[in-house]
């Protein structure tokens, strides 16, 4: 399942993406120079605390940042041969829901309460695949079956409030996958689900991914999920990717103190630990990001240098890298 070689057949390449919120008297740098890539069929994790810019990065990929207020100010998003940021709004719409889809955090709110589930899953089918009538219904039924919703013929005509949370999230997944997109963005899709439902859903998505070869970006704050689901992981802090590497590598040898702290706060299966570590302090207020490395106020190993200058990118071999003075000075 894991691809060792990710250099070729790139699906998505993000370069220096910056998305800012413009407020009356402040600029919030929600995404501040993010670069990463996703190979075809690969699952990439985007990990960080809330407010680290993960969700905003995803919305930027689909060019759906909140209007008015937020704006993509810089960067490139290469999807195969096209820079998405150069497309017209009309061209971009052909990507959304067709070549890339998203599953959002809260299944309670991401389905429209006044339309039937069937209608909502059918929308992308009619819009992008130009299928109508019986043909469209058949495809909707297939998708509902694919996400293992029992008795889809009956469920088709029901409304979202008649579904449980886990079932709704499956519907949302069906809605996204029915057009067989090349990229699926899963924005913390299991946070609001019960643990058992969560595991089912994760397994479901992993199976679907393996069958169809869809690439997935997993947004989460849970490194446990990343370990299960992803090939690569990008750790985000205060709008930047501070460490990037293959999952195994990062679990074995985390370089950034923040990555280490995140790992220490996860109850890993089988690992016996006296007590779970908690990261001290709050993620920084995006209005006043500290100078230097934004993590230094919470970093147990902060040095004077960290307060002055943002650490440069230190390559760890291959595509892996980290932004930390400890590693940079260490070599």
């Amino acid at each position, binding site marked *: 399942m894991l691809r060792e070689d990710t250099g070729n057949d790139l699906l998505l390449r993000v370069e220096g993406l910056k998305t800012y919120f413009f407020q009356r008297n402040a600029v919030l740098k929600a995404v501040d120079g993010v670069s990463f890539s996703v190979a075809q069929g690969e699952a990439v994790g985007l990990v960080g605390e809330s407010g680290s810019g993960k969700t905003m990065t995803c919305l930027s990929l689909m060019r759906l940042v909140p209007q008015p207020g937020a704006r993509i100010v810089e960067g490139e998003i290469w999807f195969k041969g096209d820079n998405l940021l150069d497309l017209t709004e009309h061209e971009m719409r052909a990507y959304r829901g067709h070549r890339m889809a998203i599953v959002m955090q809260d299944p309670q709110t991401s389905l429209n309460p006044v339309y039937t589930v069937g209608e909502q899953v059918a929308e992308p089918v009619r819009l992008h695949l130009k299928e109508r009538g019986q043909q469209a219904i058949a495809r909707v039924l297939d998708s509902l079956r694919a996400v293992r919703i029992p008795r889809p013929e009956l469920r088709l005509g029901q409304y979202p409030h008649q579904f449980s949370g886990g079932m709704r999230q499956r519907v949302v997944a069906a809605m996204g996958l029915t057009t067989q997109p090349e990229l699926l963005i899963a924005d913390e899709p299991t946070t609001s689900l019960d643990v058992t439902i969560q595991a089912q859903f994760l397994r479901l998505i992993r199976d679907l991914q393996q069958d169809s070869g869809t690439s997935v970006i997993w947004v989460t704050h849970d490194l446990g999920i990343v370990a299960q689901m992803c090939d690569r992981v990008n750790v985000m802090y205060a709008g930047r990717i501070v460490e990037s590497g293959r999952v195994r590598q990062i679990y074995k040898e985390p370089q950034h103190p923040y990555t280490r702290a995140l790992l220490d706060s996860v109850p890993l299966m089988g690992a016996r630990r006296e007590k779970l570590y908690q990261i001290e302090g*709050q993620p920084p*207020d*995006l209005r006043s990001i500290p100078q230097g490395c934004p993590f230094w106020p919470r970093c147990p190993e902060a040095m004077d240098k960290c307060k002055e200058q943002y650490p440069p990118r230190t390559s760890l071999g291959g595509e892996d890298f980290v932004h930390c003075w400890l590693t940079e000075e260490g070599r």
Partner: protein
Amino acid sequence: MANTSMQIASPTAVWAVRARSVLGGLRRAPKIPSLVLLVFMIFAAFGQWIAPYSPVAVDMAASFSPPVWHEEGSADHLLGTDKLGRDILSRLIIGARVSLSLSLFVIGLGGGVGVVLGLISGYSGGKVDAVMQRGIEVILAMPTILVALVFVFAVGRSFESVILILSPFLAARFARIVRGETLSVRERDFVAIAKVIGTPTWMILLKHILPNVFNTVIVLATLEVGHLILLESSLSFLGVGVPPPQPAWGLMVADGREFLTSAYWITLFPGLCILAAVLSLNLFGDWLRDTLDPRRRQL
């Protein structure tokens, strides 16, 4: 990006922050509405020393004199006179007192009762809440003016009866909003803590919940004064409001209706006063809401 530490601020800190923000914030208040309101408040408080004439002084010789900018107008009566020769400007100035004092009475009485009911309803929840909400809905749904007509029919026309009839409507509006706020404050940590350490309910309501719904009450009160002025003037216009010879603005508009063609100024100026006062209150209240609590846009 919600700052969680904000949500568990202690009540004393809330008051301190509020005091500072009010003092600092008033400087950024919208200029024109604040000025208009200040002028009307001064009129209401010191009207009898500012008004050039007594509002009820009849002078038949000077009846229907037009405002000063007309050829026949004179500087004696800047905004002209009505059919009895009473000075419009003086009546407007004293009229501010009628409108404002009446509204404040209603806010005090109805608003006070409404806040208490809202706190109780929201905090107790369950059956008490359900019953109170039904009652509030019924009152809110009633057409105020029709009810006022019937009420005045039954008890007669006076300053007090206008207060009595408008207060329940206001109480219902306050109760509904305060209840909603209470429901959410009730779930916060400091209330849970207070409950755990055995603080009596009235104490929780007074010390923990009330300070946190206070912003909403202030905003609502500002907006409602405007609403009340409109209602009061409508009642006065229909002849069931504050009885003459008190110079209520709505009554003045009604007085001028017979003379629309010959003496427009009798109706124009009192209406402008109502418009200016209510518009200023709405703009000021809107600003206040955005400043104090950007979350509540529904008010």
